[in-house]
């Protein structure tokens, strides 16, 4: 491990594992349920890409294995990628896990690899809501998965929740929140269900969430989680003090990160680029020694500043007060240091505020 000395800026690595046993009805991301035969080649390609990129990387302060379902593949394959990276001391290493695939052995293997944070896709504690989302696991599996994480001695636990299905009543959502809090995670993410075009959910308007109900559910989540000692630090994320996800913060702080694998995004110094979408094309590019980059954009100084503001608006850091026009100022509250952050109601209208932000005067 490399010692960052506490001074070098954070740098993250995202590794995309695009395999799933089952596709959830709302998922629009690059995932496949019929490509398990590619897993070996794919992970080997990820390892090779990690090796090639490592030379140009500063110390890595966070790694995030996301998906897809990263705990569908052998833990050692994730370990092979980790082994190539110049990890900083105390780096945050997260694996996103589907609860129904979690086993105590798997968690122990992760722990041995240095994984210190598990993110469980819980979504809901209510069976008929899980059905409506097209999820397969049963709520009791979640408790078992949490026990396995704890037993293995993995220190940080996040639970991902989804709210907004029309099948979910407000009491249903409340039950999910109560049960999630009862599991004692360090971190909670609550995402509003988003109908994406081309998904089974997106194509079925009868299952689209009602925006007003979503707002009620969001406000309920904020109230319940705050009452249980979780602080909101980003629109969809709450954490116990000190347990914020460093990797997640990188995105909102316009930080630098490298993407590994297909459909992964990278950001360095105002240049954003992303890899080819499918695992086949990714494997082909890496094995041909070609670049897997599918597209990129370079932001000018003003665009970068505007983007920084829009991203910071989502966090509890907030934005400089003079960037906020009068017609939306009622949606924000003081964040200290001449900055304003969104109130709970304001967070629900973050887009409306974001498109109205002006560039603040230079300090």
């Amino acid at each position: 491990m490399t010692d960052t000395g506490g001074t070098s800026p954070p740098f993250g690595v995202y590794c995309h594992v695009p395999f799933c046993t089952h596709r959830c009805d709302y998922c629009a991301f690059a995932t496949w349920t019929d490509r398990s035969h590619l897993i070996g080649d794919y992970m080997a390609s990820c390892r090779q890409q990690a090796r090639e990129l490592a030379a140009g990387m500063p110390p890595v302060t966070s790694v995030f294995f996301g998906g897809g379902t990263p705990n569908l593949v052998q833990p050692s394959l994730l370990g092979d990628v980790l082994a190539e990276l110049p990890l900083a001391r105390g780096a945050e290493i997260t694996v996103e896990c589907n609860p129904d695939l979690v086993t105590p052995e798997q968690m122990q293997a992760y722990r041995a690899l240095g994984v210190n944070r598990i993110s469980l896709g819980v979504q809901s504690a209510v069976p008929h809501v899980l059905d409506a989302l097209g999820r397969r696991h049963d709520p009791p599996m979640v408790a078992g998965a949490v026990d396995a994480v704890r037993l293995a001695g993995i220190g940080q636990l996040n639970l991902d929740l989804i709210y907004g299905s029309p099948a979910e009543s407000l009491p249903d959502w409340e039950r999910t929140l109560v049960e999630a809090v009862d599991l004692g995670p360090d971190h909670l993410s609550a995402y509003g269900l988003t109908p994406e075009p081309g998904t089974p959910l997106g194509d079925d308007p009868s299952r689209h969430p009602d925006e007003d109900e979503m707002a009620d559910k969001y406000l309920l989540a904020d109230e319940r989680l705050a009452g249980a000692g979780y602080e909101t630090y980003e629109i969809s994320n709450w954490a116990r003090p000190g347990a914020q996800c460093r990797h997640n913060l990188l995105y909102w702080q316009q930080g630098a990160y490298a993407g590994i694998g297909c459909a992964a995004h990278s950001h360095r110094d105002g240049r954003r680029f992303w890899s080819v979408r499918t695992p086949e094309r990714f494997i082909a590019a890496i094995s041909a020694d070609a670049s897997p980059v599918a597209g990129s954009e370079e932001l000018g100084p003003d665009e970068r500043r505007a983007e920084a503001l829009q991203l910071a608006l989502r966090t509890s850091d907030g934005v400089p007060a003079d960037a906020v026009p009068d017609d939306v100022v009622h949606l924000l509250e003081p964040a200290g240091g001449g900055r304003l952050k969104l109130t709970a109601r304001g967070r629900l209208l973050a887009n409306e505020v974001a498109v109205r932000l002006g560039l603040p005067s230079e300090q």
Partner: protein
Amino acid sequence: MAVRREGAPIRNFSIIAHIDHGKSTLSDRILELTGAVEERSMRAQYLDSMELERERGITIKAQNVRVGWRAHTLHLIDTPGHVDFGYEVSRSLAACEGVVLLVDAAQGIEAQTLANCYLALESDLTIVPVLNKIDLPAAEPDLYASEIERVLGIDSSEVLAISAKTGEGVEALLDAIIERIPPPDGDPHAPLQALIFDSHFDQYRGVVSSVRVMNGRLCAGDRLRFMHAGGLHLSEEVGLRLPAVTPTDALGPGEVGYLIAGIKDVAEARSGETVTSAAAPADVPLAGYDDPKPMVFCGLYPVEGDEYPDLREALAKLRLNDASVTFEPETSGALGFGFRCGFLGLLHMEIVRERLEREFGLSLIATAPSVAYRVRTDDDEEMQVDNPSDLPPAGQIAEIAEPMLTVSVLTPSTYTGAVMDLCQSRRGSMTSMDYLSPERVEIRYELPLAEVVTDFFDQLKSRTQGYASLDYDHAGYRAERLVRVDILLNSEPVDAFSAICHRDGAYPYGKAITAKLAELIPRQLFDVPIQAAIGGRIIARETVKAKRKDVLSKCYGGDITRKRKLLERQKEGKKRMKAIGRVEVPNEAFVSALRLDQ
């Protein structure tokens, strides 16, 4: 090829027919039979040349053509085929000595055809009645011949039966035209009197007018006086339409042709104008000239504000060809810069708007159609108001009068109840009801024009399964209990939605438009009340509740780019909104809320 028959006896006639009764097909057949147009160069419906006319199957601009038949010269003068163009029809008829009344043998005579027939009878024109489409299995020539006898007093034995489609009976019809319609009279040595019955603008030649010489001779190279417009113009070219344009040196009494006189604006050579010689002018113009007055008004605004100059140019160009359109600049708080435009009727309005969009590539918002009200204020001042925004405050109005119509509806008698219901609901009062036959009835109503310009015609058609036909005539003004309904968005009046309506219709109007706007206006960051008001009194209210959620939930795999682009798109979307006070209204909302066919 038809040749010009110098000195051959002349017959001038029009075909009066309802839409779809086969006028264009008959015209085509006549051109073919007389050899004016060779079969292989025949384009179906040769005379309907404007694209829009061909599409809608109606004639808007009158055309004329000269053919030869059995040593006679026949001038076929086409008439516009819609109720909005009644004046134009009357001028076309003034160029004829007779008309062919063409009636579908499966449908019988229609209201507007009947009205035009009465017009022809009043002008002492000879009527040659013809039943068309006798080849159809549903044809009932005997039934409709006796209907013609009952309605027009023409002996049913004089009714010809033809099929314009197959050509059957068309030769006999041409013979009957020669036998029954009298030749024109006129003095070749008298001072020139030529009637213009149509003008259109040609971008190379300027205004080309259709003319019928009544007295004297119209010669190329003469200096001419246009007696109503007052202009002096040089006759650059006179000629015949065979139908190919064929210049000639002069037109004599009874002859029909065209005149080009270096005129740039059709308003200088309107239908009904009398052309005489500048050197030896006639004492008086021909009778029957009228200045066509716009009856229906609306504001036309470009959807994109920067197309305003293009709209101005397009209107100016269009007017070169259609002097009956009026326009003047107008500013709307809601819609920005546009024009207040006047039209002869609703169809005319739709045609103009469609032409502006189609021929000039503009995208337009039209405000609700209005009629011209006569307003007398408390201090006894009289004014005409065709824009609801211009109406003085209710407290200052002594009286408002609205234009009235006498409307005649011909319908199968089974729909009598449906037609009466419609007319009653539009504030109509019945003046008469006559049975043309046990199965068909003519119902006459007095109706406010404002009630007819909305969707009366569509309603009439749908309630009678398309069988009823309509004709109308203007019938002066009548004082009524009229009020202006204003629409307020977040307490700001939106001028584009104001309407003048009868007190009894104010509440339904207010309720309908507020409900519609509540659907069309997207949720804002605050509650938006949408109110309908008469003066200070609110009569209907809807609320667009404040938007509560507009946020992107997460980013997949660090994809910040997609998030930023979604926000950029949202920002772009705001530019396509018009701000009414603090409320952002999408342009589409204006278009949809103001659409006529709702």
